[in-house]
């Protein structure tokens, strides 16, 4: 009975939002960045997209946002073909790019001119978060530093309350206190109707923020698992606490070895995303296999 209720509750609150079906993409036909990609992403999650430089993280996000078109296959968001970029699709999507150049307006002016394109825009939320980031809404955006401009766009993106929020390297340009603020604000903005995708190559910036990890490697999504699931299956520890018979990956550090081993005892442990990411890009297939 409990199980059925849980399943129903799960399906009511976690709907598939993004569907990539047999998606292939390359800027040139002979050099594909992704090949035959299949991926479903649901609402109610903050996804962390990891990959090496040049793996195609930004390009994958652009495919999802309809900013580039797949060579083959389809990308649907809320059932709409992303490549058509219809207004009904775009008003449920906000994309914060890695690099940006904002218009010569104050944050107030920008909100006044842009917010009406987003039906669920929350003005109170915008000014509250902007105050938390300590950015004045009256200063011309062009006169703000890159980090402050990024804070304005992150704040605007959150206040749009679009069902899909995409952030490409959002922590680039943010100082350390701002990164902490960013994680806190992001975590508090997630709702059951919303899906957030954050791409980064700075794995530590996603600590205590994301709930599901996506890893893009060698033209494929090699991992799409919740951190809880990963933690249940794998044990991240130093070598003395590892499951010695089930060690899958070992990396040396200054005081010993960090290991990934099979979590037979269902021990509670925190996923070391950096270690896991290194294991995957070093092609330790045993790690991925154990998660399937």
């Amino acid at each position, binding site marked *: 009975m409990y199980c059925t209720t849980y399943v129903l509750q799960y399906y009511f609150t976690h709907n598939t939002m993004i569907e990539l079906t047999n998606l292939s993409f390359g800027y040139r036909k002979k050099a594909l960045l992704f090949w035959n990609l299949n991926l479903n992403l649901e609402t109610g999650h903050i996804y962390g997209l990891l990959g090496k430089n040049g793996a195609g993280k930004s390009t994958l996000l652009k495919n999802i946002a309809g900013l580039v*078109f797949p060579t083959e296959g389809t990308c649907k968001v809320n059932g709409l073909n992303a490549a058509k970029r219809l207004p009904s699709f775009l008003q449920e999507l906000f994309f914060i*790019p890695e690099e940006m150049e904002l218009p010569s307006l104050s944050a107030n002016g920008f909100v006044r001119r842009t917010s009406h394109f*987003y039906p669920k825009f929350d003005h109170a939320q915008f000014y509250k978060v902007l105050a938390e980031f300590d950015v004045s809404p009256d200063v011309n955006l062009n006169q703000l530093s890159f980090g402050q401009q990024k804070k304005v766009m992150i704040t605007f993106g959150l206040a749009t309350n679009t069902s899909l929020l995409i952030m490409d390297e959002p922590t680039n340009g943010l100082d350390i206190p701002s990164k902490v603020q960013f994680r806190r604000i992001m975590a508090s903005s997630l709702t059951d109707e919303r899906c957030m995708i954050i791409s980064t190559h700075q794995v530590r910036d996603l600590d205590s923020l994301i709930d599901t990890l996506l890893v893009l490697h060698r033209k494929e999504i090699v991992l799409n698992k919740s951190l809880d699931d990963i933690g249940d299956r794998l044990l991240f520890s130093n070598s003395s606490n590892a499951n010695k018979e089930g060690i899958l990956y070992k990396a040396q550090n200054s005081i010993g070895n960090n290991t990934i081993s099979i979590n037979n005892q269902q021990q509670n442990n925190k996923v070391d995303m950096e270690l896991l990411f290194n294991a995957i890009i070093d092609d330790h297939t045993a790690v991925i296999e154990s998660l399937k």
Partner: protein
Amino acid sequence: MNETFNLTRFLNLFKKHTAEQYKTYLISTGVLIGVLILILGFISYSTKGHMGAVVQAAMFVNFLFFSGTIFTSLIFTDLGDRKKSISTLALPASHFEKYLVAWIYSYVIFQLVFLGCFYAIDYLIITISNANAQEKMELINVFSSDRKVWVSFLVFAILHSICFFGAVFFQKLHFIKTVFCFLVFITVLCLLNPVLLHSIFQEEVNDGIPFNMVGLIINKENIYIEPTKTSYIIAATIAILISVILWISTYFRLKEKEV
């Protein structure tokens, strides 16, 4: 929800574009006014105030074409700038609304502003030069049928449609690349036209400039065939059709635009 055109959404987009670009447009208008004062003033000064209708017409046409094509080529600059292209394409408005804002600014508003600036400066220069002159100069009427200056509006429509397409088609250096392609096209047309005329008339071709008279050498005699009035109507109709086709093509190119 109407996915192609919604008046409120369009007006919001128009207001947003104006708020974000008005400083650039005001500076550009200032530059246009400055250059017009400089050139028209210099001509009036060097001709001792005798700036006749022909000179005024020539200035009007040249400035219209030159400033209009540059302005149009830059209207979609944001799409070629990787720091701005994502926010432009991801803004929740339809492609048609984004297209229409750019078209209205580069074609309708530009021509209105240009006409206003040109007449204001021309009137000022003519008034000053007439102040102590025996022979009074008249302000040109660009809509009059006397000198056919109005034809320049038709030619501008073609040039606008070419530059408008180039503005979306090219990622960077829109104006230079569009002009380069246009010159290549005109050169090829000028080279092919005599060949085409020869195959039609089966005679030696003396003069074969496109959209002009045809000069043939028949039995060592030069014979020129002037275009008829109907030919001009056909040419004008084709020009309008080409403009419309290029404007429509620009819309579809915008729909396919990637970052």
